[in-house]
Every structure is written in C-alpha cells, then in structure tokens.
C-alpha cells in the first residue's frame, strides 16, 4: 500500500495539475469568436481541470501501483481472486434464479415501458449482436478489425436495395444478409490476412472507409448521402402492425437473434475451430507448427464475424426504415470495438454487459450523452492500461475425468 497523502505524493500531484492546467489552457479556456471578434475566457474550466487532475492523479498512481502489485503476485504463482461476475456464474444457486429474473424482465420489457424505451433496448441488443460477432474476430482470433462496420453496412444496404428493386421482404433478406456478410468477409479477408496485426487493423479501417465513401458518391447504386427511405419493417404473416406493435415485434426478433448468436458463439468457442482461433491469437508460429492452417483459420473467424454483422445490418435497416452512409462511419466500428474491449475479449457475458453499459448509459443518464464519445475514447485507453482482460475475463472450460483429477496425485 502506498501512503497516499505523503508530502512526496502531494508534490507529484501538484506538478501534475499545473501541467494539465497549462496543457488544456488554450483549448479549454480560450474561445475566439471570429464572427464578433471577441475572446471568451472560461476560467471556470481551468479551475475544474486543475482540481480534477490534482485528485485524479492520486487515483491514477494508486491504480498503476495496484496493477504492478497484481502482476508480481501473478508471477509468484498466487492464484487471482475470482471476480464477482465469475463467482455468480459458477454458483447455480445464484445464477439460476438470476437468469430467470432476467428472462422475465426481458420478455415483459415492452409491456412495462414505453415504445421509446423498447426502441432504445432494441438498439442496445443490435450492439450486443455486433459485439458478439466482432468478439469472434478480435476476442477469439486476435485480429484487430477496424472496418467491421462495413459488413454491418453491407447487410443494411442488402435489405434496402433488394427491397427497393425487387420488393423482397425482411425474412427473405435476413439469411441473405448473413450470406452477403460472409462472402464479403472472405473477399476482404483474403488479401489482408497475411498482414501483421497492426497493418491488418489499418487496412481493414481503409476498406471500411472506402466502402462508406463509395456508398456516399455512387448515387446510381446507393442513392448517395441522401440514403434510402421507407424501408419496410418486418412483416408478421402479412398483417399490418401498428407502430407500437412493430416496435415490440422487432424487439422480440432481436431477443431471438441475440439468443441464437449466444448459442452458436458459445458452441464455436469451445470447439475445434474455436480452440484454433485462440491458439492463433496466442502464438501464430507455434499454432502453425501444431498443424493449423493459419490462413484458413483466420478466414473462418473473419467471415463468421462478418456474418453476424450482415444480419444485424438487415435488422437495423428494418428498425430505422431509413439508412444512409452516415450511420456507418469509423466511429461505429470504434464503438463496437469499445464494447468488446470493455466487456472482456473472448467473454460472451462480458460483451453483453459491455454493450448494455455503453449504449444504455448515455441514453438514460442525460449528463453522459454529451460526453459519450469522450468517454468511449477514455474507456479504451483506461481499459488497456488498467484492465486489458475487460470487466469479465474469459475463463476456459474445465473438463472432468474419472479418478485421477485430484491435485497433487
């Protein structure tokens, strides 16, 4: 434990706050109004920055110290304490009733809350699905895909365009969205997968931006920045649904989709394929030396991840009934990345939690909504520095054997 309020520490914090006061001075304090030619001095911001950084710097150093201590502990072989979420999940006495309560809450949600709330929840669920999909690529296979939004856009445009030109319905296009996502995953994945990790990130970012820019400029194909409107909501056996009913209907569709996603991703991650992904993330060379085909394994991860994004795109188009390229910027990819990083790479429960926290919090706490993107950025940095495994770290499956599983035989 460090003595937080020793003179030495206070001195350090004092200099830190002076430094940040200096650093943020022009941007935070001065604002030049070039139209009326006046300078606005916002001294209160300076006071906030100085005091804020003075106190936060204690916290920062304390956290760094704790992390170092934790690392030393791990090196000396001491087992880490199980995190709270993991303890809950390991105990059927707790998690069964909890799961039942969540299920009841989720199913009755549209009846308890307004359709505005239901809509927000549906959005959050779409992000859960996107997060779970990207989790395959980043969390399991360790491929930093910064252009994930391209597959989401592909799904959305597939539905919008097929509906516009050929009148195809939601349920027909939903599987097609998955197929388009998968094919695009393979097409884009093939050339980039032999690249090293950080180059792969930049190339996927480039692809994502190229696709968005093409959508913005190729008016004949995608109707440019004005986008496509009047996309029909999902049909319910040919019935016309009222707006509220349609909102609820999409909500339940989304619940179903998320359950299906969880079901399949869970199976994948404890299968031969899933193990190969994780091995690839851990050590590419050892992985190949164990007989795993690097390219093929990466390609499956890339295109399976894209499959979920394609389907999520179709649902997104059906939900908002209007799409344009502005919905598919790099920031969208960054938000999904943030969900995976916050929740915990490789962990399904973590990603669900991450999506709900990051999407719902800014919606419900108005104070947050302005600072949404600043907080996303800060979250990425802070998680990497202090808790790279995320809120819920991935735990490997435990196998039971008759007889000889006792420790210390």
């Amino acid at each position, binding site marked *: 434990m460090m003595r937080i309020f020793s003179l030495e520490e206070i001195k350090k914090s004092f200099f830190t706050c002076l430094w940040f006061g200096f650093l943020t001075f022009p941007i*935070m304090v001065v604002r030049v109004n070039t139209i009326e030619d006046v*300078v606005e001095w916002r001294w209160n911001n300076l006071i906030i920055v100085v005091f804020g950084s003075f106190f936060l710097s204690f916290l920062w150093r304390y956290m760094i110290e704790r992390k170092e201590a934790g690392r030393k502990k791990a090196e000396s072989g001491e087992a880490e304490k199980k995190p709270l979420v993991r303890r809950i999940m390991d105990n059927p006495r707790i998690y069964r009733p909890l799961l039942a309560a969540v299920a009841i809450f989720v199913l009755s949600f549209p009846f308890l809350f307004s359709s505005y709330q239901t809509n927000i929840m549906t959005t959050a669920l779409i992000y859960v699905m996107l997060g779970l999909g990207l989790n395959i690529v980043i969390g399991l296979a360790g491929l930093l895909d910064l252009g994930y939004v391209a597959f989401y856009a592909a799904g959305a445009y597939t539905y919008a365009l097929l509906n516009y030109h050929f009148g195809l319905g939601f349920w027909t296009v939903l599987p097609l969205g998955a197929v388009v996502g998968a094919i695009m995953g393979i097409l884009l994945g093939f050339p980039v997968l032999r690249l090293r990790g950080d180059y792969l990130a*930049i190339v996927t970012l480039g692809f994502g931006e190229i696709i968005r820019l093409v959508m913005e400029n190729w008016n004949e194909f995608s109707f440019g920045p004005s986008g496509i409107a009047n996309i029909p909501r999902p049909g319910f056996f040919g019935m016309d649904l009222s707006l509220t009913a349609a909102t609820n209907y999409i909500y339940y569709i989304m619940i179903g989709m998320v359950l299906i996603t969880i079901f399949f991703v869970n199976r994948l991650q404890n299968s031969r394929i899933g193990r190969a992904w994780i091995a690839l993330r851990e050590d590419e060379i050892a992985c190949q030396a164990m007989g795993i085909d690097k390219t093929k394994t990466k390609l499956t991860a890339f295109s399976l991840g894209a499959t979920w994004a394609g389907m999520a795109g179709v649902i997104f188009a059906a939900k908002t009934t209007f799409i344009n390229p502005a919905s598919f910027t790099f920031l969208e990819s960054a938000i999904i990345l943030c969900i995976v990083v916050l929740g915990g790479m490789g962990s399904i429960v973590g990603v669900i939690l991450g999506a709900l926290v990051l999407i719902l919090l800014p919606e419900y706490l108005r104070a947050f909504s302005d600072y949404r993107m600043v907080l996303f950025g800060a979250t*990425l*940095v802070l998680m990497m520095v202090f808790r790279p495994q995320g809120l819920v770290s991935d735990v490997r499956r435990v196998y039971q054997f008759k007889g000889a599983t006792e420790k210390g035989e």
Partner: protein
Amino acid sequence: MEYFFELFFSGLTRGSIYALIALGYTMVYGIIELINFAHGEIYMIGAFTALIVAGVLSLLGFNELSILALAALAAVVYSSAYGYTIEKMAYKPLRKAPRLSALISAIGMSIFLQNYVLLAQTSDFLPFPSLIPDFHFLEPIAHLITSAEVVIVVTTAVVMVILSFLIKFTRLGKAMRATAQDKDMAMLMGVNVNRVISFTFIIGSATAAIGGVLIASHIGMINFYIGFIAGIKAFTAAVLGGIGSVPGAVLGGLVLGWTESFATGYVSSDYEDVFAFTLLVLILIFRPEGILGRSTTQKV
C-alpha cells in the same frame, strides 16, 4: 500543360504536408513499433492552438509577422506537450503488453482528443487566418503556385534535412537508432530509453504542428475532424515510403500527394479520399515494406 503544372504543384504542396505529418508516424514506429493513431489529433491540436493564439493576438493588435511567429511557436510547444503527455499516459504503461493493446489504446486516445476539442471548442468549421505573407516575385506564375505553397514546400525540405542530420550525427540520434534496434541492449549500454522515446514523440509532434499551421493557413478552414483523415493519409505516406525511414516518409508523402492531385484532377474529384485509401490498401497488401524499406524475416 498549364493544368498539368497546376496539379503538379498542388500535389507537391499536399505531399509536403503529408510528409510533415508522416515524419512523426515514422519516427515513433521506428522506435516503439506502434502506430500512433493519435498523431493526427496532435496535428489538429497544433492547428487549433495556432488559431486561438492568432485570434487573441490579432485582437490585441499585434502585427502580422509577430502573430505568425508566436502562433507557430505556440502550436509547436503545445503539440509537443500533448505528444509527450499522451505517450506517458496511454503508451508507456503498455510497453510490455501485446502490441494490439497499445494500438487500441492509441485509437482510444485519438477518439478522446477529437471529442475533447469538439466539446471544448466547437464542431463548426472555423476560418483560419492566412498567416503567410504574399511574395511579390511570384506574380508572373501566381496562377500556378502561391506563396503559401512555396513556404510549405520549402519548410518541409528544411525540416527533413534537419531531422536527417539530427538522427545521423547527434548523440540523441545515435541513442534513437540504438533504441530502435534493441531496447534492452540500449538500456544496458546506458541509453535512457524513456527519455529517448519521449524525445521522439516531442520531435514528431513538433513537425506535425508545423504541418498543422501550414495547411490550416493554406486551406483557411479547420475543425476537430481534420486530424483523422490527415492522420490516415500521413500514415499511408509513411508506409508507402517504408515505415521507419525519414526520406521514405517524404517520398511517400510526395507520391501520395501527386496521386491524389492527378487522380482528382483527371479522373474524378468525388473520390478524393478513396484514392488515398485504395493506395494504402494496395501498398500494405503488395509491398508492406514500402518503397525504401527492406523486407524482414520473422525471428523464431
């Protein structure tokens, strides 16, 4: 032919700016093998600082030349300070972590800084005063090249020469090259690795700030988002030339500038950014070591 020269000079100008920003990428990558995603934001903060300082000074009635000098100085100082702080907070604690962790942290930093400027200043485009004085001797060819363009090209050349000199002949440069080769070894040999890395960020940020001031006064508009696109393009330039190499960054910047300029001039101006991104994707796929780079064999 006139049109060709016009495009040629505008490409040269653009390319010089990309080169100035690319230098920061290349130096940081050369030393800690990190794509400093927030580098574009440092350039943007440099431009904003210059704008704010110039605005305040012109209201106080300073003359043009002193505004130019002080605004540029403030931009360089502040960008360097931001570069230094970012490294200390977001990258240094991750030096032993997997490379993707540091990259994600850098992306987070980039998003954070963009929105920090957005919230503290504005999301609107702000008019940027033209700080560069007119050169009268250029009048006969003024329709081809402006004095701002001349200043940009000359500044880039000077900065590149200074940097090459610094890396080749000074003690700091030697320490930088040693650190780039092998951090642990350099440390054993008495190089203060932390200080070398800090210096690299400071120098890289300072060149980015110079780029920021020049391009802002050339184009006359800035907003919080200019760093992102410029950052990716500069990264393209760095990779194009061979990441880690100073002349490579300049060469890459120029190639990219001309590609963009001629492609938008002769093909289509709608797809300006698409050309740059396509070039980036192609170069990374087909020649990731760049024009001046050497391919390396992975160690086992």
